[in-house]
């Protein structure tokens, strides 16, 4: 009974503090919401801010030319299909366009050189379309380059056809190579490359209905939950410091309560705090972001393992601080660095160096993150077993180291 009273006291103390509730539940949800707002609002993943593009057409095609390169480029970039990526803009000349790109007023400029159409129609020489981009918009500039490359390929098609036909005609001894080449060029192109018929049908991988955004939000939420559960574990363990300083530990010792009960009550309190926090975060994130955490049994086991891990880490950390004033900075630094190495801040970042994944396995947070990823993938107990076992073993190991240290502190406090 005393055990429960002590645990209830710690639980009440923790949850009646608005600040702690904010850090335990509010901030993880807030940070996940922030990233959801940043990347999830489109429902299809990251969306680029449209890039304003001006086409500077220096070309003056002959009146009888069958097409004009500048017109094809301008029409392609101004296509309604690209309205979410590119916004047509104007600039009187190349120098102004450069100046405006440098100032950030214009996202990019495409310069169609003088005699572009004549060069293409002659089949001789290379036509170069120059793209000036804003270095502060590298991703959008990459997209523009890809689009323009497709347009350029459309323009090249006629030239390639002429070259191949002429070469083959000569090799095969067919007379009139030049005429045949011109006919081939006229048949094949040019035309804007983005108006091609659908040559590729793209489908997203089936993964139980989980889209990229859902997966990203779920992994970010898992990372935030782990980070702040570890914080709560450390803060819960540090309650003993405050009681030592306030003298309540001595008063407790004056009552007929054994050290084992005091310690047990403390651990039960920490465990209860963590379980309530985890359950709240799982439920609220499910409601707010629609995260499906996985099957009930694996999720329950993962929650228990996370609580053991966080409590063990908190108890071990306690050995490195003497006063409650020291605990804030020490916990802050250690939990931030281990969380960072454990991959909690790069949970959804693609193409991370392999060393990052290896380093994560040296931290309890890294194992916990693996465990929750396995749960989110919908794995059964068998599927999550390796990371579950790893997380439990680390947690129990940390408790085995931390409990004697905490017992010593109790003894000192008496």
């Amino acid at each position, binding site marked *: 009974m005393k055990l429960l009273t002590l645990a209830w006291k710690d639980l009440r103390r923790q949850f009646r*503090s608005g*600040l702690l509730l*904010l850090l335990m539940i509010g901030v993880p949800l*807030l*940070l996940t919401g*922030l990233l959801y707002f940043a*990347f999830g609002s*489109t429902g*299809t*993943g990251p969306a680029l*801010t*449209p890039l304003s593009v001006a086409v500077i057409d220096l070309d003056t095609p002959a009146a009888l030319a069958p097409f004009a390169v500048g017109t094809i480029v301008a029409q392609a970039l101004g296509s309604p299909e690209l309205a979410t990526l590119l916004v047509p803009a104007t600039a009187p000349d190349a120098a102004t366009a*450069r100046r405006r790109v*440098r*100032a*950030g007023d214009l996202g990019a400029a495409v310069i169609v050189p003088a005699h572009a159409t004549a060069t293409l129609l002659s089949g001789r020489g*290379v036509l*170069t379309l*120059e793209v*000036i*981009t*804003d*270095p*502060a918009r*590298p*991703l*959008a*500039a990459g997209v*523009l380059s*890809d689009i323009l490359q*497709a347009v*350029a*390929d459309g*323009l*090249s*098609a006629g030239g*390639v056809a002429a070259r*191949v*036909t002429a*070469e*083959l005609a000569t090799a095969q001894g*067919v007379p009139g190579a030049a005429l*045949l080449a011109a006919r*081939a060029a006229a048949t*094949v192109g040019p035309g804007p490359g983005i108006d091609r018929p659908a*040559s*590729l*049908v*793209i*489908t*997203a*991988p089936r993964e139980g209905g989980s*889209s990229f955004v859902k997966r990203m939000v779920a992994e970010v939420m898992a990372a935030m939950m782990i980070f702040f559960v570890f914080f709560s574990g450390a803060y819960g363990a540090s309650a003993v410091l405050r009681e030592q300083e306030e003298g309540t530990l001595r008063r407790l010792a004056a009552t007929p309560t054994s050290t084992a009960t005091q310690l047990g009550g403390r651990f039960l309190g920490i465990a209860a705090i963590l379980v309530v926090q985890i359950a709240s975060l799982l439920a609220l994130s499910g409601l707010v972001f629609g995260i499906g955490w996985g099957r009930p049994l694996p999720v329950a086991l993962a929650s228990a393992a996370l609580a053991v891990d966080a409590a063990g880490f908190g108890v071990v950390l306690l050995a490195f601080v003497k006063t409650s004033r020291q605990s*804030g900075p020490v916990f802050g*630094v250690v939990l*931030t660095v281990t969380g*960072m190495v454990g991959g909690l801040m790069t949970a959804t*970042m693609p*193409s991370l160096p*392999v060393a990052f994944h290896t380093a994560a396995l040296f931290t309890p947070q890294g194992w916990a993150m693996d465990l929750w990823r396995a749960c989110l993938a919908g794995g059964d107990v068998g599927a999550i077993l390796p990371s579950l076992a790893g997380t439990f073993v680390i947690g129990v190991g940390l408790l085995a180291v931390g409990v004697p240290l905490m017992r010593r502190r109790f003894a000192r406090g008496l």
Partner: protein
Amino acid sequence: MMRALAVTRKDLLQILRDRRAVVFLLLMPLAFTLFFGLAFSGLGEGGGDARLQVGVVDADGGPLAGSLVRSLSASGALRPDPLDELRRAYADELVHRGDEAAVLTIPPGWGAALRSGAPHPLELVTDTGTATGLAAQRAVQATIDRFLAAERTAATATALLAPRARLPADALHDRALELALAAWQDPTVRVESAQEGAARGAGATAGASGREAGTGAFGANPYDQASPGMIVQFAVYGLLLSAMVLVIERKQGAHARLLGTPVPRAAVIAGHGLAMLSVVLGQILVLEAFGQTALGVHYLRHPWATLALTLALALWSASLGMLIGAFARTEQQVVASGLLAMFLLSGLGGAWFPLEITGPTFTAVGHLTPTAWAMDAYRTILLRGGTLSGVAVPLLVLLGFAALFFALAVARLVRRPT
């Protein structure tokens, strides 16, 4: 003036004699900068082969399909991975797990349909919501487009030459396709990209395609995002220490005792403000120096612009510290307010990732925060080579926020009972 400076000196001694302050102010931001810079650098492409692995299911099995697979391999961006029967059934899972960037299926009869002039579409399984999936889709699409153009060329040339050529039509077509694919390695029309005002030659020219050099989300040098981002984030975090001094002074009654002396209230407020400004200014300058010397971030490209931005950022951050210190009653409230401010302002303001990749709505909301303007100014200086006039607007916005926060803090400090 001397009295204000005495208050400043007292605050600085109080903050800096605690060695943990150095950890908060300098070591943490340095660690975060290095970590995120490395994470953004994309070193994880693995084993020196940066090509994207794309699983290929060749259900057609004909010569044209074989030729397409060879074209994918020759593209330079892709590494085709022929899938056996067993792995074909798990194409979705292979992509989902990240074992393959994409899986391309060439359906049965694709080659014959292509020859007949009515090509069937190919099927690509990939997650275009991820950077890898998007890159794979673009590279596959570009290769297929060129392949189809080559096939159109071969068909056209064959139709024109077959009646009078020595080779039979099929052989002529194969030869024409071979020549066309080779010709596409050196097309008639090229695209050359150049970044206007970019600092580094290596990152300034992207060659024929935006994928080729330094055009990822974080640019040529990932520290161009990580270094200023962490400076902005920890300028907010660092003010916790300064704000804490105000609260502790008030709680311990030192503030009331100070006001009992002939030191005017204005001198006390000015002294505290100057201390906060000095701490944040010192922190930013050290982090910029580290970025310049160790990480290749060109803060000194336009020193006056950087100096003006540093001052404006420090002024804003110090005024936020004053505001929190003026309103908070306990140390816990300082910590909570500081952490909330740091997370919200950093996330919304583009300190963690460029606002470019968040879409117009988030970008617009982000610009309600001073951090977004600070990041804009840093990016203008570092990436566009912007001068003092180029960052005038962000500087004015930062100074406006600083004035607003400082005025609110002073109003609170003046009215607050001692």
